[in-house]
């Protein structure tokens, strides 16, 4: 091959990816960099945004316990949501996978169907079900004799976790489902022929093998829940804020863009660190088995 042709070949990948790369830089990296920069600017009720470099916003976030509490709440809700989806979603995927032909595709549609409906619509549905003291859920629980007094769902973390778990469930089910597809279809028979009962098969054979699927689903659900906006905004409103709704309020209600930018940046950095960190841990833990 001639030197010129080789050079042309070396340039080709860059030329081919350039449009996508430019889009990526234009719509993601530049706004992101601008948001980070914005978080260092000053803001006053009357003077508006001043493009100077100060640590005022970061100092406020670091010292005011209000922000700490709000970030803890955000991650507490995300962790509980993740646990709930894992505990419900993994068995759901397993049962789904054992169903035969027609039922399987029907229930897969039932599980994935909600993805086609807007998050706002789904959460408003939950708001209707929760709706104050005589919401449908409370009425049902009370008439079933499970509770004596209505549980507050609206404007509480409980309600938020339930609604978020419902919204996030398809991601967990899909992720575990993908792991189940990789199982050898005879593996349960193999364990059975060696004398294992159903509980042992699930605990010793199935669980360890779908764990990577559960964990990758957990990472997706966790990061989506921690940065979720619509569900916390509807269930929590202005009374129970999480990081995303707080940033939104700073931007659009208080008009303190720099503080909002600082909150958003902190959320992003924290999420990236958590996700990258746990991903590395998972990969190390399962490297030996799932190479």
């Amino acid at each position, binding site marked *: 091959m001639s030197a010129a042709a080789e050079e042309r070949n070396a340039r080709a990948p860059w030329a081919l990816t350039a449009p996508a790369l430019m889009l990526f830089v234009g719509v993601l990296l530049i706004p992101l960099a601008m948001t980070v920069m914005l978080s260092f600017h000053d803001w006053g009720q009357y003077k508006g945004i001043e493009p100077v470099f100060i640590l005022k916003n970061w100092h406020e976030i670091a010292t005011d316990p209000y922000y700490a509490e709000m970030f803890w709440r955000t991650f507490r809700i995300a962790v509980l949501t993740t646990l709930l989806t894992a505990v419900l979603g993994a068995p759901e995927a397993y049962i789904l996978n054992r169903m035969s032909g027609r039922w399987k595709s029907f229930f897969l549609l039932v599980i994935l169907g909600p993805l086609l409906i807007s998050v706002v619509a789904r959460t408003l549905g939950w708001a209707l079900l929760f709706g104050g003291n005589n919401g449908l859920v409370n009425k049902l629980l009370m008439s079933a004799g499970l509770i004596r007094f209505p549980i507050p769902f609206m404007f509480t973390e409980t309600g938020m976790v339930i609604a978020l778990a419902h919204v996030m469930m398809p991601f967990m089910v899909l992720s575990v489902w993908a792991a189940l597809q990789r199982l050898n279809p005879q593996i349960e028979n193999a*364990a059975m022929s*060696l*004398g294992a009962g159903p509980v042992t098969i699930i605990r010793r054979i199935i669980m360890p093998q779908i764990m990577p699927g559960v964990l990758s689903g957990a990472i997706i659900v966790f990061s989506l829940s921690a940065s979720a906006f619509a569900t916390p905004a509807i269930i929590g409103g202005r009374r129970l804020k999480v990081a995303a709704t707080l940033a939104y309020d700073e931007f659009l209600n208080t008009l303190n863009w720099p503080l909002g930018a600082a909150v958003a940046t902190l959320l992003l950095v924290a999420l990236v660190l958590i996700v990258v960190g746990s991903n590395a841990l998972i990969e190390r833990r399962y490297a030996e088995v799932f*190479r």
Partner: protein
Amino acid sequence: MAYLELEGVAKQFGAQTVVDDFSLAVGKGEFISFLGPSGCGKTTTLQMIAGFLDPTRGAIRLEGKDLAAIHPAKRGLGIVFQSYALFPHMTAAENVAFGLEMRNVPRGERAERVRAALAMVGLAGFEDRHPRRMSGGQQQRVALARALVIKPSVLLLDEPLSNLDAKLREEMQIELRQIQRTIGTTTILVTHDQNEAMSLSDRIVVMSQGRIEQIGTPQETYEKPASAFVSQFLGKTNDFAATIDRASAPARLIAGSWSAPAPAGLSGPVTISIRPERIGFGDAGLSAKIITRIFQGNHWLFQCESECGPAIVIRQNDGERQPAEGEAVRLSWRPEDMSVRGGAAA
């Protein structure tokens, strides 16, 4: 009494009958092969013995006890799956130990038996390897060790060697036979490789479309095939149309210009089949012309056009002069080397 007995076993999936009227008695310590083309119901039959599928009809008995009442986990059979089905998250030793754990074998004895089982299949030193980091042949041995370590009453092997290359397969065949001889476990091997079935088994069950075509020793099924299917499936064969002429006395069996005294009790048109290595070139017999002649090292393969249609002949490369392509020859064989099918009772 038979050790493992299948009586009139049948399996239907919906309207489709996949296995039908399958009856077989396996003696203790016997090595049996299920041989047949793809989709003939071998795996289905094996899975019914294992208990993963319930027979639609018929009974399966082990030492006289009906297996239908016994859960697969309690049958104590050793199974090697076609895809091995090793536990990928466990090491080789943990895989082999699993069955012993389920039987609550104490830790010390367990370790000893696992070590011995892995050594027996030639995998000493591989205890801590995960299956994904082993070759196909090594995984297959782990699967075998895992099945053998529980001292199964019957060993069921579903095409365990089909994923291996020719050389490794041959080695594993020899090893498998040796292991089976030393432990004396009753074994059923599923295969669609006739050489494998013949070199390993005490008896072969030839299957076609869910039915048994023939049960017999490798030699019987090869030399006295019960049907055209068996003779075609077990190696190459020549089928010629022939007639039995009872008008002449003594009666004669005639195929073209070849003839021999007729077998007793048959008349009319019949089919005779002769293995290619049993046909010789001579001065009398079926006239034929050599179409092609292929050298295959230790033997020659001739494709001929005879009076009774195409014929193949295999001759040992023993240094004698062999006919050339285009040469006219006479084909002959000893009457006891052929099998006769069809014909009316006489």
